């Protein structure tokens, strides 16, 4: 689960990482009031779960209360890379002397935590990473040791943090690591970590991702989930535990398991079709989830045909077959459906479909054959 900047900063504050005083609001009027309360020039920042806000005009300031209201009015409702800004974060504007970068995340390959620090922070960090990677200091942290003071010292010396800032930098790293561990974060990133003209270090932005699988341990963070920000289908899908991402094509695709669904998209594209979505019902899907999945998918009016590609392992094909039939009945489906079932209880599943044999349901033998058939049906309908 990705957190908004203001949510990440709330967690930063909880763990003692210095941030600017600020407030999140969702109307221009509140923006004015917040700016007045903050009593200094403020930055007005769109809260969206995507990068590139600045270039898109989603960050304005420093602003007076009047200007803050005007900026908030401009930003609220703005579409930034497909994400609508529904809230803005106002904070006291900072004077910036230098911009650093630090992050804590998994290194999957090493199966360890990786902590990175560089004095070359800011919006060009990826360029720094690709062109002068040696400027980014890295340490792997063994879970056996945890993050020790020596890790912080090594990072600071390697990154070239000036002596007079070392204590602050080491402290922020240690606190960020604690936040990372204690909130089950997948990523804690501060970019930029600014140095003010007075020599103070402060987190000016936050990227904070918490492990969905661990949200049960953190009800306060789970409550930060912003279901309204998702579009209608995505929300419905999430509520029923299926993964749905909308795309632009005409062939609706449902499958079980991310790998197989991705592969199905590729094969449909290879057969000349355009996928309308990515939809994974996950492992062990029951008939109910199948119905929901179909409902979500069909709410997209561009869909002209649907490919159901299931390979049962923990999922049982007879359950899927029943789900498909229930969905056809309940949802009054008109577009053609191609179903391909293999794996656990596939014989039973195919028998169930063969017995019901609704007119717009086509059973395919192979994945490739199914893809070719659905592409043909989508083109023809």
């Amino acid at each position: 689960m990705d957190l908004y900047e203001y949510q990440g900063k709330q967690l930063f504050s909880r763990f003692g990482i210095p941030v600017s005083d600020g407030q999140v609001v969702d109307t221009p009027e509140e923006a004015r009031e917040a700016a007045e309360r903050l009593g200094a020039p403020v930055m007005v920042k769109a809260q969206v779960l995507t990068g590139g806000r600045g270039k898109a005009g989603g960050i304005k300031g420093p602003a007076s209360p009047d200007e803050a209201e005007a900026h908030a009015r401009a930003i609220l409702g703005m579409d930034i890379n497909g994400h609508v800004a529904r809230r803005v974060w106002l904070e006291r504007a900072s004077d910036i002397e230098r911009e650093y970068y630090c992050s804590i995340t998994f290194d999957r390959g090493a199966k360890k935590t990786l902590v990175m620090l560089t004095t070359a922070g800011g919006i060009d960090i990826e360029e720094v990473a690709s062109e002068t990677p040696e400027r980014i200091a890295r340490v792997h942290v063994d879970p056996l040791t945890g993050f020790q003071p020596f890790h912080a010292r090594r990072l600071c010396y390697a990154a070239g943090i000036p002596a007079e800032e070392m204590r602050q930098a080491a402290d922020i790293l240690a606190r960020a690591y604690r936040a990372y561990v204690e909130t089950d974060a997948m990523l804690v990133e501060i970019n930029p970590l600014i140095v003010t003209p007075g020599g103070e270090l402060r987190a000016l932005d936050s990227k904070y991702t918490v492990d969905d699988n661990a949200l049960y341990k953190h009800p306060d963070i789970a409550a930060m989930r912003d279901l309204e920000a998702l579009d209608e289908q995505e929300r419905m899908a999430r509520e029923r535990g299926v993964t749905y991402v909308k795309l632009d094509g005409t062939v609706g695709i449902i499958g079980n398991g991310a790998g197989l669904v991705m592969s199905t998209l590729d094969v449909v594209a290879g057969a000349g079709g355009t996928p309308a979505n990515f939809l994974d019902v996950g492992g062990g899907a029951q008939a109910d989830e199948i119905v929901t999945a179909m409902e979500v998918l069909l709410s997209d009016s561009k869909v002209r045909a649907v490919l159901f590609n299931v390979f049962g392992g923990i999922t049982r094909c007879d359950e899927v077959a029943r789900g498909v039939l229930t969905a056809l009945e309940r949802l009054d489906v008109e577009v053609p459906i191609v179903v391909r079932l293999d794996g656990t209880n596939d014989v039973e599943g195919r028998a169930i479909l063969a017995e019901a044999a609704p007119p717009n349901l086509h059973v395919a033998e192979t994945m490739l054959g199914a893809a070719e058939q659905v592409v043909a049906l989508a083109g023809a309908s």
Partner: protein
Amino acid sequence: MAILVGADTRLVVQGITGREGSFHATRNRDYGTDVVAGVTPGKAGQEVNGIPVFDTVADAVRERGANTAMVFVPPRFAADAIYEAVDSGVGTVICITEGIPAHDMLQLYPYVRARGATLLGPNCPGALSPGAANVGIIPAQVFGHGRIGLVSRSGTLTYQIGKELADAGLGNSTIVGIGGDPIVGLSFIDVLERFEADPETDLVVMVGEIGGDEEEKAAAYIGEHMSTPVVAYIAGFQAPPGKTMGHAGAIISGSAGTAQAKKEALEGRGVRVGRSPTEAAQLAAEAFAQLG
């Protein structure tokens, strides 16, 4: 002998009295796997379709000589179950459970390594050595016995490829699903290393997908250390952009993590990459035929 699971596997199933646990334990046993015990605390003395249940893994090891554990307990209790298995001296732990917090695994992995145990998963379909043993949820009827090793990050895609191989007339030595979680036990390289050393494996099919840089690392490993030929398939050319993990993800891997980048890395090491599961199976069949 295949790899990871085989005729000498003596399996204990943790969480055997649950719905999925009992279903798949029985299914694995019916396939021919030597399922010697189940564990559910408080249910010692019961049986699940003839498989004796114990309170602890230590009891299952002592009473029944279990040497491999399959974990089917709910995610909140899965790390504890893996600790218990390793602490009890089980050498191979195969964790099917999905949804385990990544920090639990991060914490757990060094313990597994320190004890010299092998962990497959979590959130994986398990391992199947056709004709010898099936540990996990892989639908065994799809796969025939043969000399092709198969390793994959994805569960259902594994089955798809396996079926395509079967349709192309090819069988498998072992099918291994390593799982797609951020922190897993065996990685591609670990499994490739075992296939390389396995006299019953003549060819390996590796099934990757977008994200991370495991396939790139595996490509380098194949180029430097493997004499056994490898054919690959990568899913996700059409996939929507996934989670970006801030900038950190890109900085770590130094790779875009795209399907195209992975394909190029593999091809750069002489690994042929199919554009569909069907084509991958065809390439495997061709390569296998060339082995003579």
